[in-house]
């Protein structure tokens, strides 16, 4: 078992997303995260799915998804060939006297302050999924009141010209 990111170009039609998610539950595959949104074309959506499965299951998932009429393209985003990002919103409890310390820490980590309340701050953090997790760990000692993550979205790197080729700029 290992984690894989699958990118799906999907016709933007009623029920199309349901057909994809139904296929996963029907065939017993577990989705770790699923992000869906519009693309450069209004009639097409892109799904980024994160699944934990064997290579054999991954192949089955791709083949079964290809059979869905609304699915235009299924590709695996391999870590070395893809840009992957995630947005997290994290509300952290903080007493007034420790606010400055927390804000300073978050700025070093690359997070933005989205809202400040009397006893809590909401941060927004955009980054690679491992960076999101690192930020979450960083602020956890203060007390995470609420947290939401978009799930990763990804695109193939234009610098990854051939499968397995090292990207020229890896950021």
């Amino acid at each position: 078992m290992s984690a894989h990111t699958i990118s799906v170009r999907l016709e933007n039609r009623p029920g199309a997303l349901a057909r994809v998610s139904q296929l996963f539950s029907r065939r017993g595959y577990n989705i770790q995260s699923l992000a869906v949104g519009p693309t450069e074309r209004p009639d097409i959506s892109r799904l980024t799915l994160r699944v934990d499965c064997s290579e054999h299951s991954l192949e089955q998932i791709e083949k079964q998804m290809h059979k869905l009429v609304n699915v235009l393209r299924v590709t695996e985003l391999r870590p070395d060939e893809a840009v992957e990002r995630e947005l997290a919103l994290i509300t952290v409890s903080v007493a007034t006297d420790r606010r400055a310390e927390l804000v300073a820490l978050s700025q070093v980590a690359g997070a933005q302050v989205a809202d400040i309340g009397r006893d809590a701050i909401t941060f927004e953090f955009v980054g690679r999924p491992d960076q999101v997790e690192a930020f979450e760990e960083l602020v956890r000692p203060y007390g995470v009141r609420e947290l939401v993550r978009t799930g990763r979205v990804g695109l193939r790197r234009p610098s990854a010209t051939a499968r397995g080729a090292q990207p020229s700029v890896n950021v």
Partner: protein
Amino acid sequence: MARMLGSDAILRALEHEGVEVAFGIPGGAILPTYDAIARGTTVRHVLARHEQGAGHMAEGYARASGRVGVAIATSGPGATNLVTPIADAWMDSTPLVAITGQVRSNLIGTDAFQEIDATGITMPIVKHSWLVQDVEELPGVLKSAFHVARTGRQGPVLVDIAKDVQEAEFDFVYPDEVDLPGWKPPHKVHPRQLREAARAIAEAQRPILYAGGGVLNADACAELLELVDSAHLPAVVTLMGKGCLPDSHPLNYGPPGMHGSKYANFALNKADLVIAVGSRFDDRVTGKVSAFAPGAKVIHFDIDAAEVGKIRHAEIPVVGPLKLALAQLAAEVRAATAEVAPDRGPWLRQLEDWRERFPYRYAKAEGVLKPQTAIEALRDLAATREEDVVWTTGVGQHQMWAMQYLRCETPRSFITSGGLGTMGYGVPAAVGVKAARPDATVVCIDGDGCFQMTCQELATAALERLPIVAVVINNGWLGMVRQWQELFYAERFAQTHLTHAVPDYAQLAEAYGCAGFTVESEDQLEDALAAAFDAGRSAVVDVRCDPEEKCFPMVPAGAAAVDIIEAPGEEAVPA
């Protein structure tokens, strides 16, 4: 371009698609479409007595004709009653267009009377489905529905049409092309894979073809026969594939699997090369997967890439249309065998030896009619008939005996519910077959349990003048379940005894305007069956059989082929 109502457009679309027969039942949300039927159409509508019956009729029609079956039902319970045939068509890759009425667009989502989310309920069991809420979309959707049902791996689609769409007036143009950018079934075969397959076949010492229902769906039976003959390849043929290669062909070693022949299972077990063609390594064929064909390399031909490698790794995958693939393969094999010509004599002699030593067997007993005897009598009667005989079955022991004992020499002459195992399939499927093959004698071999699930369709057979012969292998039990209870549940026969007390099937037949016959002993069998075939109307033959007869051989679920259970009195076999 013509101005018309959505309901009329549905029928014009069916006519454009060449639909000659549709099976259905009207109801509230589909009423406008039935009104359009009353206004006139070249489509013959066959009125079923239950929507499940209509669905299985459409399936029987499709499997017998190779065309897309059409079933029509209303919303809510009409749609839910179609769920079983849609699932059946999904499991057996039967091309089916199900058309359901839906409540008015403004009522969708309000839990209106007879409202059900038909596209939602059927989502896991259709290739695709459409909910039509705009009449302008109707022609394109129907065009797409037929296209998706019949292309690639065939199967069911659902078109759910709101009542107000059926009532709306618009300018009807039937499109010439479908607009389905995501639907790209394979239309050619990779030449390198074909060459590899041909080389593997040429080099194999103990090859076995494993042909399934996909060969029939692909209309590739002639190509399969050519391959078998030219490469001298022995074959096993699954339940769903029965008829794709003549049962009388000397290289046809019959069905493998749970109730297949010992020799077919042994052949797979000892093969060094399995050439799967339109078959999907179903658990009823493989038993324990890790012990299935343990010494064999696998070549897997299929139109559906997702079947290749799903259960069993294929060393040589060949994805594409079977008709093309098999034709090209035969030529490639001829070229490859010119270079390497292995001596297959020992293998073919081994297969022949197994076939001679382990035929299907059962023991006759004084005073009790064995179900196998009835099937053999039907087989022998069919052989004497001038007209074609097409068989349908229900699901259970009688189905397995039919698979074992009937001889099917032509494609599409054995029509059964394989993947879903739908009891009650046989009678309505036979009615649909008769609509497709009016000149054939259509015989449903049924169990008493199965027959009672859908026998109301005898009314359809009688009134629509689609006469069928239903032969009820009546052992008074849910026989296959009883067999499992006897073998695996210490003879605790929980809720399987249907009894011979009621109904009287011959009287039931008469009540439906059909001829009824009762057979209680072997000496009555031949005359009753012949009379039923020649009744000039639908007929039901109640064949009262030994309640305790079990279906053998049997590979228990999850066991290996070599752990086959034999009929009592047979010699033990080292495979």
